[in-house]
């Protein structure tokens, strides 16, 4: 471990550039999926365990588009629309029926949905690992020591654009306001004439579309397999839990922190700690919150 630190800060400090960049790129993709989860969780109080499977599904749609000769980025609007309507269907069939039940029902229902989606993707695409080639250039810096694939830069830009668009939508548009009102107090919103059922449907479909976009980026940066959704579910849960619901800057910040923590843990402690480190961050945040909240709790008592 000591020699790794030495390598990082004494012998090859340029490594830090690569790792900070990689952390940002990884974080940007997670931020999208995590924001969708925060939305559904915050507005509907549904903990969507199938979040990662929506991401992988978006990736497979990109794979299909690529096989048909369309570049995934060009197919993005269409994939987002397809995922949006898939979200509507899932909402009508499953989510609407569990929304008013307690937490465990929604956990069970979305877990079942997750298994179902995995198996259907497995039947359609087979269990082999698939990838999509972005055909994009790789930039190099510092005498080839630092490499920046254009596809990751494009992903970062896209993630930024969509995050801004969502924020604008939530704050400026009437529908966005309705969504926020429902999140604050569904009953009051209903009294004031907001069709909360429609708001829920919109929110879930929006989340599905966001996940689809994240999936397109995943297909071009990493690899696809019907059963890898869980990886994205876990990380988005960690991000949202640590950042707090309805806290978009927090979610985005936490995504970058997670990206960096993963990268640095991978170098300093070895790759076997890369994902564990992300979970340690979550535990750390929860502990810290617990201590922070103690004062408040005493007041209530």
């Amino acid at each position: 471990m000591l020699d790794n630190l030495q390598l990082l800060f004494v012998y090859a400090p340029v490594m830090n550039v690569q790792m900070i960049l990689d952390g940002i790129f990884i974080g940007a993709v997670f931020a999208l999926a995590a924001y969708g989860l925060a939305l559904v969780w915050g507005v509907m109080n549904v903990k969507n365990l199938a979040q990662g499977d929506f991401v992988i599904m978006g990736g497979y749609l990109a794979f299909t588009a690529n096989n048909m000769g369309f570049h995934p980025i060009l197919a993005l609007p269409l994939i987002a629309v397809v995922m949006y309507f898939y979200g509507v269907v899932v909402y009508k069939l499953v989510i609407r029926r569990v929304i008013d039940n307690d937490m465990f029902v929604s956990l069970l229902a979305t877990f079942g949905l997750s298994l179902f989606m995995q198996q259907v993707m497995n039947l359609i695409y087979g269990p082999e690992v698939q990838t999509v080639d972005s055909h994009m250039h790789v930039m190099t810096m510092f005498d080839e020591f630092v490499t920046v694939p254009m596809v990751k830069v494009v992903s970062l830009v896209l993630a930024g654009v969509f995050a801004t668009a969502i924020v604008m939508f939530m704050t400026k548009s009437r529908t966005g306001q309705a969504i926020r009102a429902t999140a604050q107090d569904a009953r009051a919103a209903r009294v004031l004439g907001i069709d909360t059922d429609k708001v829920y449907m919109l929110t879930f479909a929006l989340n599905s579309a966001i996940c689809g976009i994240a999936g397109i980026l995943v297909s071009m940066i990493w690899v696809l397999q019907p059963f890898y959704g869980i990886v994205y579910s876990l990380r988005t849960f960690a991000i949202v839990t640590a950042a707090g619901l309805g806290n978009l800057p927090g979610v985005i910040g936490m995504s970058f922190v997670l990206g960096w923590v993963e990268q640095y843990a991978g170098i300093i402690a070895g790759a076997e700690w890369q994902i564990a480190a992300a979970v340690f961050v979550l535990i750390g945040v929860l502990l810290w919150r617990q201590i922070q909240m103690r004062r408040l709790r005493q007041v209530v008592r």
Partner: protein
Amino acid sequence: MYNKLPIALGAALAVGVAGFAGGAMAKVEGDTIIIGSSLSLTGKYSTNGFHTQKGYDFAVKRINDTGGVKVGGKSYKMKIVYYDDESTPSRASQLTERLVKQDGVEFMLGPYSTTMTKAVAPVTEKYGVPMVEAEGASRSLFTQGYKYMFAVLSTSEYYLAPVLDLIAQRSKDDGKSPSDLRIGMAFENDGFSLDVRAGVLDVAKKYNMKIVIDDKLPADLSDMSATLTKFKALKPDILLVSGHSKGAATAARQIEEMKIRAPAIAITHCEAAKVHVKFPKSANGLLCPTQWLTNLPNSEPLFGDAQKYDKEFKVAYPEYNTGIPYQTAQASAAVLVFKDAFERANSFDQDKVRDALSATDMDTFYGPVKFSEAGNNIAKPMFYRQIQADGSYKNIVSSKDMTMPRKAAY
């Protein structure tokens, strides 16, 4: 109409029960030897599950078409009963239990993958059912003292270790000392890949090579950029990666993306991950281990040599025209081994067949087969190929066949 439902249900149940009763089989029914196998026909191992099944079926059909298995002067046909284990180990052991206890199967062919074989072997062992397996390569399968399990393939510690022998030989030829070579390696944190790693450690120690990176990739990680960043800083001479198809695809993608220029790179499962098609630039010069080559000289009467097997299999299954995975070839070889053992035992007594299996010493299109005390095949070596610029695989027999340093085209 609702009151008809119980009747319909009852009828369905009766049919089901009758079906089960009819399904109960003895080991040898009339002139048919029944062999059981639980294979992954759905779930994450299903691709290779089907490769295995076709290998079994092809060999069984050939044996049945050419006079069957001769035991006690009588000719028997072979038949395999398959169950789908859904790529879940617990299901595989339940189904094996069912094959043995309910269906009365007395001989088994192995499932796909080390994980499944680990789940099945304790059951077959408990009931003394001889099993020939073709798809579980982990060394750890052969340290349990199993008496009834035999494996035709080379075990996992030979997947990458002999690559180091080739590279060491090459640097000696070039007038350099192998002890100057530095290795960076990343292995998935699972039983199979850690066995591969154990083999590598032994050989590296033999040549006094220095291991500067030794990362274990978590099973749910599809990003090895941290490991490769370290690799670029330390610049070792050799990169070794093992992590099934996902590891191979991730490595190939990121080797190209991060412009890794190590003189030698060896990765397991390159062919399964189709890296030569998906990442032709980084695939150029990769060294890939394989269990089987289509130009092996070894032969036996039923299939002839590897070339003949390759040709005839493609006629039977045209969907394999682009190449037969070694998983299929070794599955066929496992069936050949069973036939040979039945004939030498000249009996269907489980223990006699077991003893005959243990004494196996035969040549097949898949290479020679001879089992150690532990049940693994010690006669057949692992083979190596290097991916060429045009995406073809070149057989590497001696260190001179190898292009080293590899030419990176990015």
